[in-house]
């Protein structure tokens, strides 16, 4: 600190003794070590057992292996294009541009859960639909939904622990029952959610699957009123359970190929249904369904009329980060949302720089 009490000899303060110099040097060292340590602490270096986005994605890579250039989860997929026609009904809940009457272009991706990009189609595999709407003023709305009525986990830790517990054993090619039992015991919400999921019959194809956002969001309208909302894309094509000839089809991509044939014969449609939460409905727990009698608002229709194989620059190179939201849709207190955003980003970053292998569904598969 400056002071005018410094004595005579210009710019030459009294000499420091050797111990004093050493003590001061040590002090400088300690301050710098603290700074470096603080940064390492923030970066999670001292908490190696705490989940980070990188450790989460390492878990996917451990279970499914590394498939160069592919998403670490929902690896198998196909791109679609179309548009969303808003009927204006959603505007009373959200001021987002997407809910004003009008049309916005949409890029999407149908997928299967899991990290294997060449996995054979099975009816029970989780079907995913990622959508990206480009709004008029340059804002975007991205969402990634699945064909399940609830999510089986309500924390990122539960998701990760399940991922690790369900890793097939090298000998049996099945998860270790003891590990799964331990997982189920430590996360009681999993069994409750699984029961709800099992009571829902799976449809015969992507075209008649309903895709649910599952996480709650806060919709904010022009009057700044905030409402908890969950959304679904409800298939216009009538529900039909999978029939025998389908499930014995030897084609490894029979569900994707069925979808490609259908979209070529006619555009496929879904209705965007907003479920309006009431005070007390959980917004931070995606394993719990909201009561059946909650108000449903039909906000418009999604039409998909083009299908493409994953190629450079299309849906392959988009991260369907569920927290890319327009003004008027905000995240809720659901802990899965920020975690999904973080893990998707980590997966995207890793695959972005890798050599891209051909997808299971190739450009020739999507020809008319």
């Amino acid at each position, binding site marked *: 600190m*400056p002071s005018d009490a410094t004595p005579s000899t210009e710019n030459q303060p009294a000499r*420091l003794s050797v111990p004093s110099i050493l003590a001061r040097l040590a002090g400088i060292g300690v301050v*710098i070590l603290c*700074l470096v340590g603080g940064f390492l602490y923030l970066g999670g270096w001292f908490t190696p057992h705490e989940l*980070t986005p990188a450790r989460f994605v390492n878990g996917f890579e451990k279970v499914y292996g590394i498939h160069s250039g592919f998403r670490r989860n929902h690896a198998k997929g196909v791109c679609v294009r179309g548009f969303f026609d808003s009927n204006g009904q959603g505007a009373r809940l959200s001021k987002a541009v997407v809910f004003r009457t009008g049309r916005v272009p949409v890029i999407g991706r149908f997928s299967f859960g899991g990290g294997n990009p060449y996995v054979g189609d099975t009816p029970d595999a989780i079907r995913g639909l990622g959508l990206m709407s480009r709004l008029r003023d*340059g804002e975007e709305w991205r969402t990634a939904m699945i064909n399940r009525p609830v999510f089986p986990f309500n924390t990122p830790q539960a998701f990760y622990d399940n991922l690790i517990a369900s890793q097939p054993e090298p000998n049996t090619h099945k998860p270790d029952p003891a590990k799964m039992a331990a997982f189920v015991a430590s996360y009681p919400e999993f069994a409750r959610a699984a029961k709800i999921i099992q009571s829902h019959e799976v449809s015969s194809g992507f075209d008649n699957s309903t895709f649910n956002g599952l996480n709650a969001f806060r919709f904010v309208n022009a009057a700044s009123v905030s409402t908890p909302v969950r959304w679904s894309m409800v298939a216009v094509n009538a529900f039909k359970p999978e029939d025998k000839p389908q499930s014995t089809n030897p084609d490894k991509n029979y569900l994707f190929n069925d979808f490609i044939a259908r979209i070529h014969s006619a555009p496929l449609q879904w209705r965007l249904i907003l479920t309006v939460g009431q005070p007390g409905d959980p917004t931070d727990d995606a394993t719990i369904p909201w009561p059946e009698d909650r108000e449903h608002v039909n906000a418009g229709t999604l039409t998909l009329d083009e299908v493409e194989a994953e190629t450079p620059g299309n849906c392959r190179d988009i991260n369907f980060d569920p927290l890319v939201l327009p003004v008027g849709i905000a995240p809720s207190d659901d802990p899965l949302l920020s975690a999904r955003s973080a893990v998707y980003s980590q997966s*995207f970053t890793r*695959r*972005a*720089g890798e050599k891209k292998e051909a997808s299971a569904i190739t450009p020739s598969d999507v020809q008319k």
Partner: protein
Amino acid sequence: MDPQQFPASMRFFHWLMAAMVLTMLGIGVAMVASLADYHQLVSIHRPVGILILVLVVIRFVNRRLSTLPPFPATMSSQERFIAHVSEMLLYTLLFVQPLVGWGMLSAARYPIVMYGPLHLFPILPHSVMLYAALRKAHTVLAYFLFLAFIAHFGAVLFHTLILRDRLLTRMAPYRAITR
């Protein structure tokens, strides 16, 4: 006698940006390691990064227009050279780092949201390979920035506590009386 100080405007930019850059480095390492706070931290990191980009340009122009105080007599000509080069290196890093951040978000085709509906235009075409390279560069540059900060901070502490040449007073946030 008190050394001559940098002009008030330069000292203002110095401390403002020191606080911002240190905070940004902290947010940066924390957000890539965080699940729960990732979204919140990224939402701060983006606009503050762009603010730093704007400020560093203004700061550089201001520096060119200002009269700099002479180096203290305790600095040798090599030290002066190193100080000058590292200053220019820091300016370059502070300019390039946010630009790389903006560029990588552009290449990943993320919307570059500042606040609410306010967002920036992309400065690069959609290319995931480009994104991957820039994303790596962003990390490497952050390490360089942190190292540069540690070196700068350590050198100033050395001068101030060991040589006691009142080097810090030149950039002190308060006004020191010059006689």
